[in-house]
C-alpha cells in the first residue's frame, strides 16, 4: 500500500516534469560542481537572468554535481543522450573533468568552461577570471598591510580544483617578494566557512599571538576566519584578512573594515558563458547580451579564452556593489 502511494507521488512528479517541457528551445545544460556555497548560487542565478533565458529562447537546466566527479560524468552522459545543444561546465576536478568534456565533444556538443578550468583542449571556449592574478592581488594586500614582515596563514580551496591551484600560485608568487614573511600554515578548508572556522580556531590555539595575517583563497573561508578570531575574543581589525569572490557577507565585512576582498563577476562569467554557447550553436549572427562585453572584446570569431576582470572592493564602491547584488538576488 505504501509502495503504491510512493509510486503515485513519483508519477505525478514525473508527469509534471514532462509537461514543463513545452516548446522547442535551445536546451543548454549548466553542470556546476556544487551549490552549497554562495558564489555558485550567484552564478546560477545570474545565468537564469540572462535575457535569452528570460525570453524563453533558451531553457537552462542546472545539474548539481554534488562535489563528485563521477556524478558530473554521469550528468554529461545523460545530457548527451538527450541531445542538449550546449553545455556550460564548472568542474570539480581539473583532470577528471576532461573526461566529461571528451564525452560531450565526441557527440559534437560544444562545452563552454566557466569560472573553473579543466585540462582539456576539447573545450570550445573558456571564460573565467585569472585566478593567479587574484591570488597575487590578495596576498599583496595582506603583505603590505602587515608591513612586509610577520606570519601569515593561507586557507585553500579543494585541492585539485583549478581555482585553488592558481590562487595558490598567485599567493606564493606575491609572497616571494617579501622574504621577511613566513607562511605558518597552508591548508584546505574546501571553500567552506564552517571548515575554515574550525581550522582557524585550531591555528589560533597552536600559534597564540603569532599569526599576523590571513589569506583566504575565497571569501567564505575568510569569513570563517573572521568568526574564529571574534570568538577567540581578539580584535579582528588587527588582523589583515583577504578573500576573493565578493559574496554579500564579505562585502558587508569590507564595509566594516574587517577584511578586504576582490569581486569575481559571477554575472559576467555566467552570462558570458551562455553568450559564447549560443555563439557556438547559432553562429556569428548571434549578438552577446551580457553587460561585461562592453569592456571585453567579443571579437570576430570565438577565442579559446576570455578573461573577466576582477573588481577590488573598496570603501568607495562597496555600497554600489551591494545594491547591484540586491538587484540580482531580488525577484
Amino acid at each position, binding site marked *: *500500500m*505504501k*509502495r503504491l*502511494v*510512493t*509510486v503515485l*507521488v*513519483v*508519477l505525478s*512528479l*514525473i*508527469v509534471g*516534469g*514532462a509537461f*514543463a*517541457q513545452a516548446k522547442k528551445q535551445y536546451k543548454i545544460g549548466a553542470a556546476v560542481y556544487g551549490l552549497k556555497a554562495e558564489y555558485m548560487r550567484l552564478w546560477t542565478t545570474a545565468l537564469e537572468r540572462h535575457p535569452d533565458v528570460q525570453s524563453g529562447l533558451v531553457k537552462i*537546466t*542546472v*545539474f*548539481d554535481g*554534488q*562535489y*563528485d*566527479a*563521477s556524478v558530473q*560524468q*554521469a*550528468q554529461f*552522459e*545523460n545530457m*548527451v*543522450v*538527450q*541531445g542538449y545543444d550546449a553545455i556550460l561546465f564548472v568542474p*570539480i*576536478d*581539473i*583532470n*577528471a573533468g*576532461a*573526461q566529461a568534456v571528451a564525452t560531450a565533444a565526441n557527440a559534437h556538443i560544444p562545452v563552454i568552461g566557466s569560472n573553473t578550468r579543466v*585540462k582539456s583542449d576539447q573545450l570550445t571556449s573558456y571564460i573565467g577570471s585569472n585566478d593567479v592574478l587574484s591570488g597575487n592581488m590578495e596576498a599583496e594586500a595582506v603583505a603590505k598591510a602587515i608591513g612586509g614582515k610577520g606570519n601569515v596563514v593561507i586557507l585553500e580551496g*579543494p*585541492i*585539485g580544483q583549478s581555482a585553488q591551484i592558481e590562487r595558490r600560485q598567485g599567493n606564493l608568487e606575491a609572497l616571494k617578494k617579501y622574504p621577511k614573511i613566513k607562511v605558518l600554515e597552508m591548508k*584546505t578548508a574546501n571553500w567552506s566557512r564552517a571548515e575554515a572556522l574550525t581550522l582557524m580556531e585550531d591555528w589560533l590555539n597552536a600559534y597564540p599571538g603569532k599569526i599576523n595575517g590571513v589569506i583566504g583563497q575565497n571569501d567564505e573561508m575568510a569569513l570563517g576566519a573572521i568568526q574564529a578570531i571574534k570568538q577567540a575574543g581578539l580584535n579582528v581589525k588587527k588582523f589583515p584578512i583577504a578573500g576573493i569572490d565578493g559574496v554579500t557577507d564579505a562585502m558587508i565585512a569590507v564595509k566594516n573594515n574587517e577584511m578586504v576582498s576582490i569581486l569575481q563577476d559571477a554575472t559576467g562569467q555566467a552570462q558570458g558563458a551562455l553568450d559564447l554557447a549560443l555563439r557556438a550553436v547559432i553562429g556569428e549572427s548571434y549578438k552577446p547580451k551580457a553587460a561585461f562585453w562592453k569592456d571585453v572584446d567579443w571579437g570576430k570569431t570565438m577565442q579559446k579564452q576570455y578573461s573577466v576582470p576582477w573588481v577590488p572592493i573598496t570603501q568607495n564602491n562597496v555600497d554600489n556593489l551591494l545594491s547591484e547584488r540586491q538587484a540580482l538576488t531580488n525577484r
Partner: protein
Amino acid sequence: MSERERVSAKAEMSSRDQGKDGEARLKGIISEYGIVLVFFLFCAVLAFASPYFLKPKNLINVLRQVSINGLLSIGMTFVILTGGIDLSVGSILAFSSVVAASFVSTAFPGRTEAAPIGIAILASMGVAAVLGGVNGILVSRMKVPAFVATLGMLSMGRGFTFIYTDGMPIPKIDPSFLVIGQGTIFGFVPLPVVIFIIAFGVAWVVLYKTRFGRYVYAVGGNEKSAKVSGINTKLIIFFVYVISGVLAAIGGLILTARTTAGLPQAGQSYELDAIAAVVIGGTSLSGGQGDLRGTLFGALIIGVIGNGLDLLGVSSYYQQVIKGAIIVGAVLLDSFRKRND
C-alpha cells in the same frame, strides 16, 4: 510423503493460511516478484514521460552508472544477510582506488612509469581485503557491533585516503588502465557492466550453490543455532566483510577509470545507496532473509530513478526525497508482509 499425509500437513499449518489459499497465493507472488514489477512500472512511466528514456544509448548509460553501486550492493547483501552492516564501503572504495591510481599514474610522487595494470588491480583489492578484514575481526571476534565498527572504518578509511594522497587527486592515469571504465565489449556493452554481471554471477553461485552461502544465511537467521550446528560463525562473518571490501575495490577501479583520476573525495555517501538497494530489494536488516535478485532490482530502481529525473531536468534534491520515500515504503511493505506470516 503420501497424499493423505500432505493433506494433514496442510491442516497442521497455521489456521490463518487455511481457506485463504487464493489470496495467499497472490500475496505470495507480489512479495516474491514485487520488486520486479515495481521496477518495470517505473520504467514504463519514465518511457512515457521522456522520449529519451528508452533510447539504447540511455539504457546503456543507466547500466553503466548502476554498475558501481551494483558492485557495492552485492557485497552489502552478503553483509546484511549475516545481520550486519557495512558503512565503510565508500571509504574503502576511495582508498583502494587511490592505491590503484598511484600505481598507474606518472603523477604520483616517486613513480616514473606506470606499473602494469595487473599490479594496480591486485594492490587495490589487497588493500581493500585488509580493511574489510579489520572490519571482520572487529565484528566477529571482538564483538563490536557492526554499525560501530564500520562507522569507525568509514572515518579511518577516508583518513588513510587523504594521508596516502596528501589530499591531492592523482591524475595522469596510464591510458591502458582507462579501459576498465571506458572500454566496451562487442562495441557497445560497457566494460563496467560486464564486470558487474560477472561479479553478480559469481556472487549468485557462491550464495546459492556453495556451503559458504548456506552458512551465511544460517548465521544471519540464528547465529546461535548455526554455531551449535557446527558452523564456524566467526569465520563466516569475517569473510563477508572481506567480500564487501573487495567488491568496493572493484567499484573503485571502475570509478577511477571513468574519472581518469584517483580522487580522494570519491565515494562519499556511497554506502547509503548500497544499503538502499539491498533494503529496497527486500533483504531484511535483521539477517537471514533476502536475495541477490532483489538487490539487483533495488540497484536498478535507484539508477533508473536517478536517470529518469535527470532526463526530466528534476533537481537532485527531489531525487533524494523520492529515494528516501521508496526505501521507507519498501521496508514498510516488508514488515507488513512479515507480520502476516
